[in-house]
């Protein structure tokens, strides 16, 4: 495929890139734009480390060709909250001190935020199902689950 000029919107900023349309979004984010929150783990949708939001829904950015984005808006962990105004999932992550090495964590947080945006009060089973595609080699799963539950509680206002 030939290099194309395209504009993509990431974290409410528009960027111009000259890349092959079939380049995975993850490569564009990390190597072209220097947005390194999304991580490369497997490249084949098996680990979740590269998870970002496209129009608010979790997507494995290693699986999405940048040419297929169209006018969709991308958000990464860098755009989820700010240090002064954290996203509720980020707040809960800090309260539960979820991260260990941290490599998987941006993907975990983006997946959890996507779940809570469509299902603000998920059951334990629904949390397990939603988060099972995000692997953590450090085994932080119990803390991830606890943090997702606290974030859901905050969203319920209790």
């Amino acid at each position, binding site marked *: *495929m030939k290099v194309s000029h395209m504009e993509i919107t990431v974290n409410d900023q528009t960027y111009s890139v000259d890349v092959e349309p*079939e380049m995975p979004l993850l490569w564009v984010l990390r190597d072209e734009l220097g947005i390194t929150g999304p991580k490369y783990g497997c*490249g*084949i*949708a*098996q680990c979740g480390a590269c*998870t970002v939001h496209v129009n608010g*829904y*979790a*997507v*494995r950015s290693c*699986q*999405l*060709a940048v*040419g*297929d984005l*169209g006018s969709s808006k991308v958000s990464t962990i860098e755009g989820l909250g700010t240090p002064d105004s954290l996203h509720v999932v980020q707040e809960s992550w800090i309260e539960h001190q979820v991260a260990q090495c941290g490599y998987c964590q941006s993907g975990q947080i983006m*997946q959890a935020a*996507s*779940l809570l*945006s*469509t*299902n*603000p*009060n*998920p059951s334990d089973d*629904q949390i*397990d*199902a*939603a988060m*099972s*595609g995000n692997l953590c080699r450090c085994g932080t799963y119990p803390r991830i689950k606890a943090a997702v539950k606290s974030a859901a509680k905050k969203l319920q206002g209790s």
Partner: protein
Amino acid sequence: MKNLHTAIGLLVSVMSFGAIAADDNVQIKPPAAGSVSQQQGLLAWSRIFDVASHPRCANCHTGPSDRPMWSGPSYGKTRVHGMNIQAGKSRIGAETILCSTCHTNKSEDWDKANTVNHAAPRVAMSWQLAPEDAFWFGRTTQQICEQLRNPETNGNRDALEIAEHLNHDLILHWAWAPGGNREPAPYSLQEHVNDILAWGVAGTPCPED
């Protein structure tokens, strides 16, 4: 719960515009009325069953179970989709994790989209499980036949409309071009469409009629 259902309803309606563009190469030409005998219709049905019961199709037609199945050279035998995937009532995973999180939407067909072994296959529409009524996984030829000819369980379609549905829903085309080391569904999409049309003209016979 009400919020969840509203969100899922919205999501399904937002995502459902993804079913686009028929394959121009597929011809929908039913045989003339009365030109297909019941015996020929049953032969056509046996080939339709070969397709419906093939893993490329049956693995996502799991009926009351919302768990897609995996099978093929990499798995040895058929097993439940990894990662605890549950497509839910929405059939697109809206309650937990959308199928399209990994099975991302392509804007159009391009070569090599599905050539990477073990990567999630992609088509130019939202990945999803078939509706609950379209229950094929592990079912007999008679059970699938009766489901497919009954408008109450086939989306209120006659055979011609089933053929048109096959032409329009691009996720179904993937079964014949699955990429990677996946085995495609038998025959070709055109042959399958021809069989559906012939079966319809024969009066949608089933083996135990």
